[in-house]
């Protein structure tokens, strides 16, 4: 599987340093929510990005500016330009919920939007809790409102919706909800709290993890989680709650580029 060259059909500014790219694919990827693609910018680099949607040959990606490659993408990749993608990679979310609560933080909302569309398309009831730094940083909220029954927004400074974190808001909403599944994507420390809470309540929960991805196909070990030797790139990035809580690494360790286990970055 080589790269697919994709034309950038549209670039939207979602928030400061977060953009959405709509890519025209020459062949459909048939991606599932929770799967990701590797985006290659020739001569610059390659990085993993969750699929935020795929419909009729168009792939939607939400990219936050972090460092070199994502910075280049923000500055230099415009409508009419090209990027190269390989994928879809990894295993996505299980889609069998009847009443689901989605908990997203920051650009973690992106794969959850794709999930929300699929779940509601399959007749499930979908509610979402989305947390951002401030009103200015809120993204995809209107898109969620189109497909989810309830969308609650939290901002840390209270400039929109509930004042507090996504976890604070989740703690309020979750107990009364009668949900049969919780899905979460965002900062790992946020997800850890959500997962723990859901598992304690006996509700099925799945979370999408981030680690440094090198090969993306499960041969190099760069993304391994101890002690089970699960690979984020190919056994994940989505794992269920019980599995995550049985790992030493969840919420605690990450691997740097050399493969060394280091404390999870904040």
């Amino acid at each position, binding site marked *: *599987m*080589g*790269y697919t*060259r994709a034309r950038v059909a549209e670039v939207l500014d979602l928030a400061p340093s977060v953009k959405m790219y709509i890519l025209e694919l020459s062949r459909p990827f048939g991606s599932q929510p929770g799967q990701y693609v*590797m985006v*290659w910018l*020739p*001569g610059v*680099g*390659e*990085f993993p990005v969750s699929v935020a949607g795929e419909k009729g040959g168009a792939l939607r990606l939400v990219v936050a500016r972090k460092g070199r490659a994502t910075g280049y993408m923000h500055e230099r990749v415009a409508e009419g330009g*090209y990027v*190269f993608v*390989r994928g879809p990679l990894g295993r996505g979310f299980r889609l069998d919920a009847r009443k689901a609560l989605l908990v997203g933080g920051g650009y973690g909302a992106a794969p959850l939007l794709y999930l929300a569309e699929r779940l509601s398309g399959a007749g499930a009831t979908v509610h979402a809790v989305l947390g951002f730094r401030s009103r200015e940083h809120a993204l995809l909220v209107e898109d969620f409102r189109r497909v989810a029954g309830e969308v609650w927004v939290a901002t840390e400074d209270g400039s929109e919706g509930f004042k507090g974190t996504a976890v604070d808001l989740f703690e309020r909403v979750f107990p009364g909800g009668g949900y049969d599944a919780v899905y979460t994507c965002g900062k790992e420390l946020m997800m850890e709290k959500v997962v723990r809470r859901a598992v304690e309540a006996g509700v099925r929960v799945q979370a999408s993890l981030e680690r440094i*991805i*090198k*090969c*993306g*196909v*499960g*041969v*190099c*070990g*760069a993304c*391994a*989680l*101890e*002690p*089970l*030797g*699960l*690979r984020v790139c190919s056994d994940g990035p989505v794992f269920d709650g019980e599995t995550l809580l049985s790992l030493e690494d969840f919420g605690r360790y990450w691997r*740097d*580029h*050399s*493969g*060394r286990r280091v404390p999870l970055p904040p």
Partner: protein
Amino acid sequence: MVELSVEVAGLRLRNPVVVASGVLGVSVGLMKRAEDAGAGAVTSKTVTLNPREGYPNPVVYELDYGLVNSMGLPNPGAEEMGRILREARRVLGIPVIASIGASTPDEALRIAEALEGFDALELNASCPHVKGLGADLMSDPDAVYGIVSALKSSGYRVFLKLSPHGDYLAVARKAYSAGVDGFTAINTAKAMVIDVYARKPVLGGVVGGLSGRAIHPIAVRVVYELHREFPEVPVIGTGGVEGWVEAVELILAGASAVGVGTALKRGFEVIGEILGGIERYLRDEGFPSVESIVGLAHK
């Protein structure tokens, strides 16, 4: 019942399938999964004295017939790998081969001392995409001689991992005279990929190493030649073992065990499939053991 266990340079393996270096990286959990899936031994990622980050992405390119990688030997360095190997020793029942990348005897000894907790060392003289280490050793048989001698005189069991490039028999001869215990053959073959639409080399390291199905016949040739010249030195035949046929082919060429790398992309189950196939083959063809067919193609 056919006997699958083999002896390789004094190491007793429950079966001949060895996980090749670099493919399970640095994770004890992944080594354990390989053991649970049936592997006879595992090899660590090549470790260097100091940590290395490797090349920037992209680092792999998948082909229908193999894989090209330019990982660039990312590894956490000898001290951290020592911790990992000690943990592996505690958790695993099968032998662990520690792969090391060094360019001088002193460096090799310092790495080996930092590691402990392994059953054999494998000197990687053959990584095709890293300067100063690996493949560059292949063009310097005297350096190989120096490193192998130093490791041997410190009492280590040493395998030398060869590349299919250059005069690998000359390098093997030098290692033999230094008392090497075994050979691993082969490492990846120097390769490169250019995307025709990007009109640029794909890999972050530009040059990479080809592995998988594509290099299998090359591995068979190298193993055959090594066994012909050094019939008493065991070889871990590695390169494109995707199923039991390739494994048996390498054993017939002279391998005492077989390395599996790229095939693990399909999942750990391939280990069991390969073992099941070898066992069936031996039974159906009327051989009592793996050892009874080693090098049979030379007879």
